[in-house]
């Protein structure tokens, strides 16, 4: 049995790990540009007193852009596969909540992540993609939740939907354990 669950807070924490270098670089750039140009052209004297308020405004704006969507994520989302069952519980970007399938009703296919490119319509960060997923060149379409560091991608064609799922450590053996 394999389970992968992610809380909203974990999603934000993991994303922050990826965002921090960009946020810091962006803020450093904004600060340096404002400082240099205000010192040279004396825009808004005294320039040094204006810079912090601008920086705070830009900082909040950047945070809202980065985390605005994260905050709409469900409190807990994920999937479980094995023991004859597939559970999909995401409730975000078109994926269902609390859906349980008998694995015998679904056809399963395993794709090695290194052999495919993931195209996504929905939520995406350097860590995870959630929403309508297309795998190319296999041309497999469905709704899914896939992490970038996974080795295997499970394609489950169930009676009412096709799910594309992956997470760290998920592999074909897990389904039978």
């Amino acid at each position, binding site marked *: 049995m394999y389970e992968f669950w992610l809380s909203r807070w974990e999603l934000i924490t993991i994303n922050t790990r990826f965002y921090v270098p960009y946020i810091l670089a962006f803020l450093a750039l904004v600060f*340096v*540009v404002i400082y*240099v140009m205000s010192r040279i052209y*004396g825009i808004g004297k005294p320039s040094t007193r204006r810079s912090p308020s601008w920086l705070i405004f830009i900082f909040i704006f950047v945070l809202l852009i980065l985390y605005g969507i994260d905050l709409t994520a469900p409190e807990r989302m994920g999937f479980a596969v094995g023991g004859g069952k597939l559970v999909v519980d995401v409730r975000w970007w078109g994926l269902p909540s609390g859906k349980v399938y008998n694995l015998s009703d679904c056809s399963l296919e395993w794709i090695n992540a290194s052999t495919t490119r993931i195209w996504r319509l929905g939520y995406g960060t350097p860590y995870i993609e959630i929403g309508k997923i297309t795998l190319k060149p296999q041309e497999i379409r469905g709704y899914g939740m896939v992490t970038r560091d996974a080795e295997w991608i499970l394609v489950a064609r169930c009676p009412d939907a096709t799910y594309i799922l992956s997470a760290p450590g998920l592999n074909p053996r897990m389904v039978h354990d």
Partner: protein
Amino acid sequence: MIRFFLVAFGLPWLLLPVMYLWGVGLWALVMMFTPALGVIAQGEVYRPELRLRDFAAFFYPLAWVAASAAVTALFMPPSGPEAGIRYLLARMVNVPAEEVPRGVVDAIITQNLLVPLLIPFAMLVNTFFAFGEEYGWRGYLTPKLAKRLGWVGASLVVGALWGLWHAPVLLLGHNYFEKFWWPSVPLFMLFCAASSPVLTWVYLRYGVWGAAAFHGGINAFAGIYFLLYPPEPPWLLNPAGVMGTAGWIPLTLYAIWDIRRMQNTGRINADATPTPHHSSR
């Protein structure tokens, strides 16, 4: 000048571990403002005038790209855009060049046809960030050194220093694709020394913003070379390599001739004070 050098050269080295860990990216743009920060630290802030006509200099580096391609053509025929794009993409995604899908290469070639539409945007962005450098190199340091070395001598010295200043990003693979490949530093010093008289000439004609536009043009148009020749080996077939450096020679010779002519006709102040293009604060 000591504070200028400490700040302009010291900050990029402080940024080196950050860029090593997190990638060069936006940090390189921060680094481009360190020469301007050096001038501010030195307490010799001046206010260059910005005029629309200065932006004309943005297009002058096309002559350099053409000269570099012409010099290269003396030794080998152009191989067309596919090889260069394939090479650069392969470097970006860390796969062998022959494994880059044909469709991706074709898509990028098609995108390149749309590039002219982006020229106004590229001109503004590249000029703005290059201003951070030119404010220090051409607007401050070159006139200072010109008092002792003359404009041509100062240009060559500033060019070499300007190339050396790039060392932190060069060691991280900028321009020559290999990380910690030390010859990239002397190679780029040569490149900058070769191009510096032309930048000085642009500065003397158009002021600091003109030099920034020209510098921005170099950054914007250098990639055209890769559409003709893939950078193999990067030290040779590269706008920042031997062929790119050779491409500067005719332009530099003209710039040196014209700078001397301007000096002889008294169009440059004898004491090498900044030209009327900007005024001291």
